[in-house]
């Protein structure tokens, strides 16, 4: 179990990481997600021991390792650029930590073989790093870090240097590998798709703080801050004020748009400024008047992008706001609904959809 307690990192007057507390469970695939400069890599580097902690503590299985040197921590890292030793072949790269520990040659050979097999690198042992593809280099970096069976494996954007296709394939292998070895993975990425696909839990970071830490589904479906709503996936974000709220229904007056109703309600106070967020795929472009359990806005289709599986619409409301709507093409075909640019349409969505976030 890895525990971060009020972790803070300051460079000069700049707080890069601010008072971050986190508990990462054993065997968890944990993801630090955020834009560049949000402090996610700094946290990773503090866990690895490459950066001094300005304030706070890092506990590994209850033991404070804050002040320990990198080589005294039972933690290994897969670097963003892999940092393979260019003068060593694959075998020596992987065996490096065991050679440092002066293990017997037979033991080294045995363990390297095991991890080489695990990483799918059989036959590449004598190659030099420069002779490997990006994907293979990534596996060597992974094997080198895993051979010690560390308590925590830190991965710093390990897929960002790969082609999209290979990155997707490697992503799946990575998830499988993590299940196989059962080691806690802490994964840093700016790529939300990777985070959603891989992580058991995601901490979304911005400006040195954790905006929200939850399971991928919760992060996607119920963002709890404006930043998370905006950062993860595509989102329509509208400002408004609560005009009525009771246990059954909440009324929100949206700026330049009009009144909408939300059937879920946790007793918001009236008059409070809020942000209403709704995913484009939760909305529907339609010519049909809304049902009584639906919200509806009227607008004109301004753009339409056909992407095979889905079509992206942008609908301009009468107040001038643009709303994104994503429609499944097979559903459009089933109901024989096709909309053209400039067409006057309704945007309908269920009152159970969408989230209210404090402004």
């Amino acid at each position: 179990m890895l525990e971060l307690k009020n972790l803070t990192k300051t460079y000069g007057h700049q707080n890069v990481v601010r008072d971050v507390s986190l508990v990462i469970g054993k065997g968890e695939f944990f993801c630090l997600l955020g834009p560049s400069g949000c402090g996610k890599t700094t946290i990773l580097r503090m866990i690895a021991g490459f950066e001094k902690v300005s304030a706070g503590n890092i506990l590994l299985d209850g033991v404070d390792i804050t002040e320990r040197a990198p080589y005294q921590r039972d933690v290994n890292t897969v670097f963003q650029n892999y940092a393979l030793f260019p003068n060593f072949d694959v075998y020596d790269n992987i065996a490096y930590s065991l050679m440092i520990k002066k293990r017997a040659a037979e033991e080294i050979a045995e363990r390297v073989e095991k991890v080489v097999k695990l990483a799918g690198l059989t036959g590449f042992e004598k190659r030099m790093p420069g002779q490997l593809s990006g994907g293979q280099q990534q596996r060597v970096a992974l094997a080198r870090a895993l051979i010690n069976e560390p308590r925590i494996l830190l991965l710093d954007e390990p897929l960002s240097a790969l082609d999209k296709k290979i990155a997707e394939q490697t992503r799946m292998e990575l998830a499988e590998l993590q299940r196989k070895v059962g080691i806690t993975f802490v994964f840093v990425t700016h790529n939300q798709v990777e985070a959603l696909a891989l992580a058991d839990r995601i901490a979304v970071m911005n400006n040195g703080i954790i905006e929200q830490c939850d399971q991928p589904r919760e992060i996607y479906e119920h963002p709890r801050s404006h930043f998370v709503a905006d950062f993860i996936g595509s989102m329509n974000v509208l400002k408004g004020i609560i005009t009525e709220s009771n246990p059954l229904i909440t009324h929100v007056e949206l700026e330049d748009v009009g009144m909408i109703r939300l059937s879920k309600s946790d007793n918001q106070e009236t008059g409070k400024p809020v942000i209403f967020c709704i995913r484009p795929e939760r909305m529907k472009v339609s010519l049909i008047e809304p049902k009584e359990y639906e919200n509806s806005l009227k607008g004109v289709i301004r753009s339409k992008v056909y992407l095979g599986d889905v079509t992206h619409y942008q609908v301009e409301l009468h107040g001038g706001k643009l709303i994104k709507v994503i429609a499944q093409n097979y559903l459009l075909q089933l109901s024989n609904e096709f909309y053209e640019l400039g067409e006057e349409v309704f945007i309908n969505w269920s009152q159970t959809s969408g989230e209210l976030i404090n402004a």
Partner: protein
Amino acid sequence: MRKLFKIKEFHLLLFPPAFWLLLFFIVPLIIVLIYSVSFRELYGGVKTGFTLEHYKEIGSEMYLKIFLRSIGYATITTLITLLIAFPVSYFMAFASNRTKTILMLLIIIPFWTSFLIRMYALMTIMGESGLVNQLLMTTGIIKEPLALFNNAFSVYTGFVYWNLPFMILPILSSLDRLDTSLLEASLDLGATKTETFFRITLPYSIPGLVAGVIFVFVPTMGNFIIPEFMGGTDNYMIGNLITSQYVHARNWPFGSAMSVVMIFFVMIFISLYLRFYNPSKNKGLLTI
């Protein structure tokens, strides 16, 4: 076709340097080689012919001693320079850009002054009534002036001072390319800072180190100005001997023979060195 044509044009660029080398390097070398087997005329002229007597003369004890001394000086100078230069390069490679620029300037600025002037400056500093001795005497640390001059110490000082930049810069250029994440990876994998230095940093600096050693050893071997200025007659090196044969004794054939022998030794040294150091096979050094 077009590409071939381009390559031919490109090759034309090689003519000026090739011509230059031919005229000022190959031709003089051949002349020296011919002189070295020629006869000496009474008043310093050279008479063509064939004799090996000049080479035999080099084998005499006096000259052999000077020869060995030159090799000794060059070797020890190279070692001292290396020991001083490496930490400097190491520090510079990992310093901030600002510090690096300032240090780089400090290394390069002396080049703006003539070599001779710098040697005179060194003489003033190290002489019997020079800056160092006066400072030590007025502060009462010593009573008699130290013999800092006209001995092996002053020769080494001069050589090391002169050679440092030629060692620092190539090592720096190697270490500069060292990706710090490699060092982090090594620490991460359980190596201490010392182990990381010997397994990663040092092997990585070897190409620069090799260049630096050649840049220092070879010119030191043939240098005659520093022993002349700083060393007095007891510290004559092969360079001084050759100069005196050409300039004072006017024995050009003998000077040429000595030059040939020196060039031969230096060539042997460089080829052995390069053979020993094989960039693609320096794994042996890595797995100490």
